[in-house]
């Protein structure tokens, strides 16, 4: 587990925190949330790719989230395209939560049902 945390730390340090959308003024970069979720929408759009999802909270109530990834060209460099996710897919997703509350987040990584891991570009 320690190795996983360390590896993620190294990964985050290696990715430049570009000024634009998804910066530290919007998201708490020191926190990570991981959810088992179902994709409800996937928008390959500007300024940043958006992933909509439903996930159950601790009480079993379904909560809707919107997760901001990176810009399409940067995501494409990591192997993403406009069909990388489909509504209805079950995923495990990790993101930084919002500083301002609300069900939004900054994408870090996800694991698909077949075990394939996809990272932020």
């Amino acid at each position, binding site marked *: 587990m320690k190795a996983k945390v360390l590896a993620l730390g190294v990964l985050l340090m290696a990715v430049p925190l570009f*000024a*634009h959308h998804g910066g530290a003024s919007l998201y708490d970069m020191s926190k990570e949330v991981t959810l088992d979720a179902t994709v409800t929408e996937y928008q390959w759009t500007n*300024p940043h790719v958006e992933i909509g999802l439903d996930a159950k909270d601790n009480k079993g109530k379904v909560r809707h989230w919107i997760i*901001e990834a990176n810009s399409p060209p*940067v995501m494409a460099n990591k192997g993403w395209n406009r069909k990388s996710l489909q509504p209805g897919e079950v995923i495990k997703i990790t993101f930084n939560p919002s500083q301002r509350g609300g069900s939004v987040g900054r994408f870090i990584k996800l694991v698909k049902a077949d075990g394939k891991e996809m990272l932020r570009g």
Partner: protein
Amino acid sequence: MRNRLRWSAVWLLGILGFISGCSANKGGKPTSQVPDLSGIWLGKGIQSLSPSDPMGHKRPGTEGDIPYTPWSIARMKAQRPATGPDQDFAKTTDPALRYADPDGYPRASIHPMRFKIVQTPDSIYQLWEYNKSWRQIALNRPHSEVPDISWFGESVGKWEGDTLVVDSIGFKDSTWLDPIGHPHTEDLHMIERIRRVDPETLVFNFTFDDPKAYAKPWNGELTFKLKTDGIMTETIYTISDELSFRQRFLNEKPTIPIRPSP
């Protein structure tokens, strides 16, 4: 006789040296052939042109290498960039984010996407992936008598050995030089020295001369690496995109109706 031969040899070597100097620059390349800058290039994703603080961690005025005037430091402190120690994306005054204005130059090259250089005998073009924008550097000609004021300025260039020297004026003063918000006026005079220091690396050295904004000329540098994979993509960022983003992620009410989906 021996002296005459010696002087003849010296004279001949001198002539050969002169001819050699005419046909080759310091890099050993014939002057009839200029360096090839063409290719797709990607920068490091810096936030500030301050050489001592490229990631923009320091507050304006504490960098130590930017000679602000009272006008420019006041302007810097009044801005709210989306990067740096005082970043505030939600209330940013960054015109490239708030209004989806063009980045202008040199900020276009700081955006973390690629640009392509296309080289012709009379002009060199930079084509940016972001917002599909471009800039022309006209070679071996003077500036216009009354240059227009434009987002990317008017640029003329000439080769000095292996270095492309570019002189630019006529910049619209609403753009920021970099994401942290270094300002400039319409009087900005920018000199670039562009050199391919090795096959994989392109270096732009800038001198910014803008007396109202900076007490003396100062220097910045951008370095780019050659990208041989992939093709240039379309990434056009519009005010509609920004309003939609703010509605979805910041729960802001759009100031104008967002374009409906077809």
